[in-house]
């Protein structure tokens, strides 16, 4: 594990009116890690994700990506710095085909207006086709994204996040509403990307087995605050965490 965090949050807070959706959360993700972010519904996981990817304003605290302060950056700037994410509610361009969805998600860093006036480059298309096959979407390449099943759209969204070759991927509930076979596929792909390409992952997940199989470290949020952090086994044995998830009678 490298000593310098790839993505680091210091005292990150986000308020909705009087409600602290995320309250002074400290965390760090190091290069090459797969880190989990768990917590009961409404614990602030997605809000934290939105803050990190700058889809939402951060009210207090600071976020660093690759050592750069991104606390006030725009989402596209964060993307250019090597962060990609998926959304809990899947965001694909429904009226475009699978291939078009992938092409339009390519690396946009440092583009002048004139390069935009051409059709997609060959290299971009090659990478898109490679990723489409990698995510088992090959037969659907010319299908409109709106016609795909929920699971296929999840895979497509992960593919779109991979197009710019990011350093870190934030996956928001990559397994929700997905059948077990496809979950295995996603798991397998995450491991391959992590091992072979050295991609770093931060996963929001309700599926505890998924988290324990993949993650080396887990953060637990509850009511917007960091409740615990540790290895999956430590987390599973933590009484506070069990209480937060199941209530006192859950023991």
């Amino acid at each position: 594990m490298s000593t310098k965090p790839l993505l680091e949050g210091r005292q990150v807070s986000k308020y909705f009116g009087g409600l602290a959706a995320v309250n002074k959360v400290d965390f760090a993700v190091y290069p090459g890690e797969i880190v989990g972010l768990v917590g009961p519904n409404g614990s602030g996981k997605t809000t934290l994700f939105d803050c990190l990817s700058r889809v939402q304003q951060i009210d207090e605290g600071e976020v660093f990506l690759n050592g750069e302060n991104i606390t006030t950056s725009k989402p596209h700037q964060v993307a250019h710095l090597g962060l990609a994410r998926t959304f809990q509610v899947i965001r694909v361009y429904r009226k475009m085909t699978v291939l078009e969805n992938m092409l339009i998600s390519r690396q946009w860093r440092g583009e002048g207006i004139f390069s935009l006036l051409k059709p997609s480059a060959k290299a971009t298309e090659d990478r898109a086709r490679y990723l489409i096959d990698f995510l088992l979407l090959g037969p659907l390449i010319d299908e409109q994204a709106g016609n795909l099943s929920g699971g296929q759209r999840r895979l497509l969204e992960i593919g779109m996040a991979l197009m710019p070759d990011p350093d870190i991927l934030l996956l928001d509930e990559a397994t929700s509403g997905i059948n077990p076979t496809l979950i295995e596929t996603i798991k397998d792909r995450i491991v391959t990307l992590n091992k072979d390409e050295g991609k770093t992952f931060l996963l929001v997940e309700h599926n505890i087995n998924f988290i324990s199989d993949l993650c080396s470290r887990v953060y637990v949020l509850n009511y917007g605050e960091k409740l615990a952090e540790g290895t999956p086994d430590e987390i599973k044995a933590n009484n506070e965490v069990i209480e937060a998830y199941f209530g006192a009678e859950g023991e």
Partner: protein
Amino acid sequence: MALLRKRVEKFAQGWFAFALWILFIIALYVFPYSGFITEKNELMGTLQTLSQLFVLITLASNWNLIGGMTGYVDFGHAVFFGIGAYVLGVLVTTSGGALWFAPALPFWVALPFAGLAAALFALLIGMPTLRLRGPYFSIAMLGVFVAMREIIRVWKPLTGGGAGLTLPPQNALFGFPQDWFRMGEYLVMVGLMGIAVGLSWWIRRSEFGQTLLAIREDEVGAEMRGINTTYHKIAIFMVASFLTGLVGAFWAWQNTFIDPDVVFFETRTIEMVMMSMLGGLGTVWGPPLGATVLYFLQDLIWANMGDVHLLVLGTSMILLVLFLPEGILGSLSDRSGTSFGGLFSSSKRTEREAAPQEKSVIEKSSGGV
């Protein structure tokens, strides 16, 4: 069906379609000399009719860049038409001599300034309004449009106020004799239309066009995937406004008279929207097709139904939105999304019902808490 759609799109964005367009433009240039219409007054009448149609086609095509491709339904786009018209009017007449220090410019010199002024205004007004989404943007632009009309009305020294400006008669273009004066107007408008629709074709097949479609489909997603959406939106808004400003300037020149009410005319915006929708929002060839159909339809209804022609037109627009919301070209393949088409495509329907994620959920502004 998906295959048909794919083929239609591939053709529409291909070089062959563009070559056909160029050929069409050349044919339009040759047309007055072809001897197809020999009687001169009849020829001049036809050229005038065609020029009017080409104005509509160009406006529809320009509006489609921001309203169709980018999904920002601009209910005030005629403001750029008006700015183009007035900038040309002022520069050509020096406000009826009120601008004593400025030389009266010829049409050709004033024309680019009209476009640039419209584009500059689009930049200024786009920065705040393009932050708004959906109906808020539409209403904001409608407000801009109405406000600008009133500004022009009260800014009498420059614009002539409600009395308007009278432009010099247009007869000198290309050195055509006075009884051929429609020729110059026709040739200019064919050129403008050729450029506007050609540019639309180019943008649609470029990555720039793809980013616009991405913004239309899901702006938050596009931004998160590295597209600077603000920059793209303002860029296309300026392009569309530049061209619309040119058309406005042309219109002012050929009409030889402008006042706030004829230039800032609500129906003009409504027409741009209707023509684009009729042909197919976001497609290259839809708006020109829609403009052509609507132009002749309007003429036909007006000629045959007189007083009630607006009623008939309004009703047909309601029917259009109900049955062909994606327009003529957009509906070539998949009609299951329309209430009418849904009746006939039960298979698609069950598929949609089975899909868990529906559009309303997808379009929420962020991923949820």
